[in-house]
């Protein structure tokens, strides 16, 4: 009696299922890494967008055109950065100043009322935070990350923290940029869509100050 020859070329059903399961597991790992990247991209839409860049440009222009520019720059001191309008804690009393503190430092000379320009501009553009930092932002970034800002007990929002983390440190170019500083701002946008009340959002921008 001849032996029946078995054909061993095909897959058994179990082997096929195991193979499919393995492929599904690989795809799941890929997707888990894909969604955070999509989330990051959506967040980056609010970073250094064109409108915010023009706003920070005008603010820089107001600082640079002002005769009091050096006293404004000197606010940075040894800390490496300065927040205009820090929250001041005095015992149980918390006083939140506004970024208009920058405007109080600008000058009024004859018909050139830089204070007024600054005041109206900050109000209209809805700038909520103004930081002036050294060109090399390492100290600033570290303090924001650790929530240990020198300027008062300012609350750092998660969104601002993420933006500062996204910003480059500029330390590689810092040596060739002596005398330069960095202006970092936060702008509030009110969501006028009535179906999404309370979903105001913020955009951020930074620019070098000469």
């Amino acid at each position, binding site marked *: 009696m001849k032996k*029946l020859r078995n054909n061993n070329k095909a897959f058994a059903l179990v082997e096929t299922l195991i193979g499919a399961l393995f492929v599904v597991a690989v795809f799941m790992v890929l997707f888990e890494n894909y969604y955070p990247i999509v989330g990051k991209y959506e967040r980056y839409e609010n970073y250094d967008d064109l409108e915010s860049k023009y706003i920070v440009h*005008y603010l820089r222009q107001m600082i640079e055109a002002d005769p009091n520019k050096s006293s404004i720059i000197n606010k940075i001191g040894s800390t490496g950065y300065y927040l205009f309008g820090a929250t001041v804690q005095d015992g149980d009393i918390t006083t939140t100043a506004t970024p208009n503190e920058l405007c109080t430092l600008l000058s009024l000379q004859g018909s050139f*009322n830089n204070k007024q320009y600054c005041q109206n501009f900050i109000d*209209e553009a809805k700038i909520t935070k103004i930081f002036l930092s050294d060109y090399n932002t390492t100290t600033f970034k570290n303090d924001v990350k650790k929530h240990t800002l020198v300027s008062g007990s300012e609350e750092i929002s998660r969104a601002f923290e993420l933006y500062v983390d996204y910003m480059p440190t500029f330390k590689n170019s810092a040596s060739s940029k002596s005398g330069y500083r960095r202006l970092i701002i936060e702008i509030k946008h009110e969501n006028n869509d009535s179906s999404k009340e309370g979903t105001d959002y913020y955009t951020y921008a930074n620019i070098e100050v000469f």
Partner: protein
Amino acid sequence: MKNNKQLITINKLNNNGLTLIELILCFLIVSVIVISLLNTVMNYKNKEQIEDLRSNIISYKNQVTRIIETDFIKNDISSYKLVSTSGKAGESSTEIWDITFQFNKQFCGGIYQKNMKIVRGNKENYIMYPDIFERGGTCYNQNVKYDLLSTTNVLDVDVNDATTASGDKVEYSDIRFAYVYLKAYGNIFTLDIPIYHSDFGTNYHIRIISPLNYLQSAKS
């Protein structure tokens, strides 16, 4: 002898095929996988279209913002005037805003002003803004139309026409200017034109905020 014949017959049979049950089972497994993926694929297709649209809106608003802000910064805008508004945005009508900007520094050809036109309607939405430039010693001044292109027409409640009954739907382009907001707050000029789309609402704006007459004041 008979047994030998039977054995030879058996030897000639082969195991190359699939049984019916195996075939049905495989078909069922593949159907389940395809149906579960179908929804995902359709979602990604929709998402791709939405992202494409978002990218077009952002490109448009950035292009218009850049062109106007460049003039404001380089030529130091000194003042603006709302020359006229006419019409009403509706199914077959448009609202037209005519604005004149005055600059402290001249463009080529000794021109100190530019006229901007904003047209807003159910289907027509565009901005006309002049481009003045010099090439080969000659000054060119041409009006450029920045058209907010729509991809489809949709039915939506007519928010512009108070005479239609509440809930009446009319045809709109899917992307349009929601309104035009223009003001000077002290010496700060603001132009805000939200771009509306049903998926994004009015998340995207052409927003221009600029100090008026700043460089001239700073010099004095």
